[in-house]
């Protein structure tokens, strides 16, 4: 288990309300916890980055990792 910091962007900032810290084994585990905690996150097309690298597969998390949650923006 690792304690990681979560930062969020765009509309996700409103849903998560503030940056937070959670304990999780890997990125899938973390996402499940977040979906459980914030139902509005479910089904949103968000992208996840761990330590500023966007990930597509589940990865193991380490203490002090920074996980960013990003939605697409449409405005121009």
């Amino acid at each position, binding site marked *: 288990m690792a304690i990681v910091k979560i930062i969020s*962007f*765009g*509309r996700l900032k409103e849903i998560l309300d503030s940056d937070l810290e959670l304990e999780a084994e890997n990125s899938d585990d973390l996402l499940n916890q977040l979906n459980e905690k914030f139902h509005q996150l479910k*089904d*949103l*097309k968000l*992208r996840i*980055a761990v330590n*500023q*690298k*966007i*990930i*597509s597969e589940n990865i193991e998390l380490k203490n002090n990792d920074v996980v*960013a949650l*990003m*939605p*697409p*923006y*449409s*405005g*121009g």
Partner: protein
Amino acid sequence: MLNLERYDRQIKLQGFGIEAQEKLASAKVLVIGAGGLGCPVLQYLTAAGVGNIGIVDDDRVSPSNLHRQILYTTNDIAKLKTEAAFERLNAMNPEVKIDMISERITIKNAVQILSDYNMIIDCTDNFPTRYLLDDACRILKKPLIFGAIYQYEGQVAVFNVPDKEGSATHYRNLFPQPPKPDEVPDCNDAGVLGVLPGIIGTILATEAIKLITGIGEPLINRLMTINVLDYQTAIFEIPAENLKDQNFPSTITEFEKMNYELHCGIDLKGITNMSALEFNKIAELPDTIVIDVREPDESPKLEIPYLSIPLSQLKENSKQIKQKNVILVCQSGKRSLAGAQVLNEILGSDYNISHLEGGINQLNTEINE
């Protein structure tokens, strides 16, 4: 011949010189969207001496554009954005050849329009056009500079340009699947701080100048995010991996068969798009109801009788609707379209469901004309 005096202060720069200025003069850049992002991009690229700039936009200037779309003046309201922009830019730097393309970019005209330019800048304001552009640029192998904004935050990235290892990424590497229509509010619905597109647009122009002249390190395969409230910026690596979901075109023939509205979850079947002109004629006919799906505190209010049901409560309140002709309205036409889809599913084909395209914004622009 280069006008050495006009460009003196950048030619002087170490690492720039006449060579870089000549590269700018022979560049052909296409800017899609002449709105919040497009205005500063156009201004700086024109001032910098990019040889040929194309502007694609079919929209007209409306009063609510003016706080951020700084190419336009109060006198430009109701004018085509391409024409108003041309006037200003041509006065700023008559040495730049500016093409006005007063159309919406579509699967039919995209290949032809894009072919004339060697760099594309995405300053659009909706997902169907963003995915359309990403696919077209990927297939045509055109460098694509991408910018997008939300309230106080911006995103910038450079796509279709190989990095040192030779790999290139696309918008689909960042967001493989389009969000649902009601998932991400746009500037019309969520609001935007006027300076934000100024900052993000200026970065887009910077990336264009860097790519053309070969200076610095453009945001190739990287996403930069900026928040103007706390100046938190971050740069994320975008993975150059094969896209799993094959639901996108890889040839021109496949591209020209795409339906990007449907691709982005916008199903127009059974829903009529109503223009402002038609709306004014039809809204007060018998057996017709107008429903404003905005929140009750939003303005301007409609000047005709209407029912107020916010989009989030439309499903529960659909039984209230007795009339056969239902017209939905909102600020920009986005929520009304989502609402029309909701009602279409519940009420079905016994009802004529339509929505005001472009929303109340459009209504006001056309009345002003």
